[in-house]
């Protein structure tokens, strides 16, 4: 019988296993039993003996390696990791889970990429393991786990605040009635049965809730608990004395596994090609929202569009286009030591867009220049000075999701948009296509020969001048005002 702790190491069963182990002593010793279990597994493929985990630490690394390879290695072979779904390793698996969380918590903290990977990997692993169970078994496991995680039959949706806030679960995925989350079949039939016409209510329950949704909630809750546990470890470690050197070593090894894909299989979403180098801006590759903003904002929301949206986008696209891939925080001057590109290419393009707003942004709000400098990381000052750099941070570009919320009129998604979650990723994707692949396939509205910034800057001035004089509406009629001031 599968133990709950195989899915949720943070369950009481899981905690018992840790307690039994007691201390770190002998944590890196060989475990012949583990080797035996791995080699005995009939679906296990072993190319090299060195691949067989022979202690807790190696097993821990295998968990991360499995996730990274699965994500990034196009030649990923799941049979080499079959042992990870074999519940006879539960005892060792649980310990390795705790080791990973502690190592990552101590060394990297809860907001690190390592934590993100650990949490995601745990989620994927649970799903992989569930997939190996029979329907009866998996339903039983889900029901047991949920009973443990939810404590109560009736759960108000606000209980999932954290999962919603971290977007692990979308509110629209939950089935709600009167604020309560509907999970149980009887409850479902009682509340909705009479409304369901032309369908069998039982099968509707199975489809909408029975299998997928319950499992989803279980998985996401365990992921959240994993994240919370890492946070706890991190906080405790800050007040404790020396962390165990074994943990620090493991943390370094985790970081190494994570660094690998960037060198080997081109980190990112399956796109080939090396890392994105910074280079002159190519307006042909701008996403629809940026093109729209460059035409000038005519209908309110000028400040946000220029300061919060355009400034980060233009600066990162020009200076550090692969920020999300590298996941390393930088300053503008790391990429542009003399600030020449910033002064001569980045700011002019932002100012141009500001000028084309109606009314021109700096005419009535000259202080926004200071805010632009702040978003570039140079504090609240009217000029860019090296000595001020670092007083604020260099804002990374808003995600599409944020844009759709804050500046809905800018977002006019096209086909490329379906594949990305951030305008900067759009740019990286497109620029690579524009440069390397299909030169003839560039957007028909654009002039394919206009491969420079000047062209797009001049394209629409006339238009906006006409609207400018025609538009005198009173912009003070807003009913509400931002507290950001």
């Amino acid at each position: 019988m599968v133990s709950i702790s195989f899915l949720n190491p943070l369950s009481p069963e899981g905690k018992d296993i840790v307690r039994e182990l007691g201390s770190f002593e002998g944590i890196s010793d060989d475990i012949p039993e583990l080797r035996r279990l791995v080699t005995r597994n009939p679906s296990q493929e072993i190319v090299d003996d060195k691949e067989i985990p022979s202690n807790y630490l190696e097993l821990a690394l295998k968990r991360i390696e499995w996730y990274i390879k699965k994500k990034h290695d196009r030649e990923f072979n799941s049979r080499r990791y079959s042992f990870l779904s074999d519940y006879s390793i539960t005892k060792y698996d649980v310990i390795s889970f705790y080791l990973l969380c502690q190592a990552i918590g101590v060394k990297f903290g809860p907001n690190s990429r390592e934590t993100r990977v650990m949490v995601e990997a745990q989620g994927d692993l649970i799903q992989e393991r569930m997939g190996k169970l029979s329907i009866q078994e998996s339903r039983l496991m889900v029901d047991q786990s949920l009973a443990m995680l939810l404590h109560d039959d009736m759960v108000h949706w606000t209980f999932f605040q954290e999962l919603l806030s971290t977007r692990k679960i979308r509110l629209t995925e939950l089935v709600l009635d009167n604020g309560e989350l509907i999970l149980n079949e009887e409850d479902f039939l009682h509340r909705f049965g009479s409304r369901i016409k032309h369908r069998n209510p039982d099968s509707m329950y199975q489809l909408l809730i029975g299998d997928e949704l319950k499992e989803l909630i279980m998985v996401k809750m365990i992921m959240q608990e994993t994240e919370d546990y890492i946070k706890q470890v991190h906080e405790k470690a800050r007040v404790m004395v020396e962390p165990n050197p074994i943990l620090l070593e493991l943390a370094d090894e985790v970081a190494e596994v994570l660094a690998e894909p960037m060198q080997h299989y081109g980190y990112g979403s399956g796109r080939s090609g090396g890392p994105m180098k910074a280079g002159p801006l190519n307006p042909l590759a701008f996403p629809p929202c940026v093109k729209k903003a460059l035409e000038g904002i005519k209908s309110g929301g000028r400040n946000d569009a220029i300061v919060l949206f355009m400034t980060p986008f233009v600066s990162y696209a020009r200076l550090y286009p692969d920020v999300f891939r590298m996941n390393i925080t930088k300053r503008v001057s790391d990429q542009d030591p003399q600030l020449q590109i910033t002064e001569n290419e980045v700011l002019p393009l932002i100012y141009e867009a500001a000028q084309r707003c109606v009314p021109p942004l700096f005419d009535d709000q000259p202080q926004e220049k200071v805010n632009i400098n702040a978003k570039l990381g140079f504090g609240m000052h009217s000029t860019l000075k090296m000595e001020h750099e670092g007083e604020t941070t260099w804002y990374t570009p808003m995600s599409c999701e944020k844009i759709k919320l804050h500046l809905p009129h800018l977002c006019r998604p096209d086909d490329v948009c379906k594949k990305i979650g951030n305008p900067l990723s759009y740019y990286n994707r497109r620029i690579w296509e524009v440069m390397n692949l299909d030169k003839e396939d560039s957007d028909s509205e654009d002039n394919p020969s206009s491969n420079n910034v000047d062209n797009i800057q001049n394209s629409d001035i006339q238009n906006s001048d006409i609207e400018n004089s025609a538009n005198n509406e009173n912009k003070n009629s807003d009913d509400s005002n931002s507290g950001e001031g």
Partner: protein
Amino acid sequence: MDLKPATPNERRQYYREEWDVNDIPEFIRKTLTQREFGFDHMGRGPNDRYRVFQNTDYLRKFMRYRTPFAAYSSVAFYHKPRRRDGWIKAELVFDVDAKDIPIRSCGCENVCEICLNQAKDIVHGLIDTIQGDLGLSDIHVVYSGRGYHIRVLDDKVMGMDSDVRSQIVKYLVGSDVPRSEYSSHGMKYNLEHFTVPFGYPQVFTDRVKQALLNLNLDTEIDEVSKDIKKAVIKHRELLSEDQWGLFRKEIGPVRYARLVKGIASLNLTLVDAKVSIDLKRILRLPSSLHSGVSMKSTLIKNLETFDPFQDAVPKFVYERKD
């Protein structure tokens, strides 16, 4: 009735003769000292901010003496409202502005009776979902002068961050197309949103219906051609009888999918999401004058019978000579 701006004299008349501090809803008066107040004196935006009133009497005097162009108070509660510091919690707010309704049947310049009524219908739908799905009950509706504010004060949601609030907005307005493919035991099944009579799919169906019934040929929807719009107008009668299956067949399944996707993204502007996710926003003070259109921002007791052109018009408008 034309919605002309109020003159300074009219403002003075309003605050000295008509307005009463007790017209401010109780949910604001009893938390007065925890809120930040902001004022717009010149009609150029609320730049007199960080104001705090120790009691209603100070507020009363301030309004009478200064007769502001516009008055606002924070949705947030602070330990130190004067510094906008020590944030405790914030009302959950939805701002439905008649001027910004994505599919307007009137086509007017500013706001008019038609779009204000449409705004009211939207508010009705949102409140149904806030109560029926989200199970919240401490709900106040305020006429803002150009639309409606829904203000929710249930303790369960007042502490929520912007990310959760943005999820709530998406649920209420129907901005995600519900998935139609489900699987069970390795088999795939298709369930269109309109076949699920509860939960989010039902909310989505309601919002789409509202949009389709108001749509006209000039409504711009992403990737939806004039032909599709013509077909919608021709067949939308079916929707009044909830014949969704037939309607979808008439439109064609591919074009139908494109249509609902377009409407889903328009739905995101049913409310001003910026207002809902801002934890420190100031909002027009109910009972104060919207000087731009000469109407009173008004707490609504019965949304059914509320008529802005009856219930939110200050006296001075009737006394105007022109």
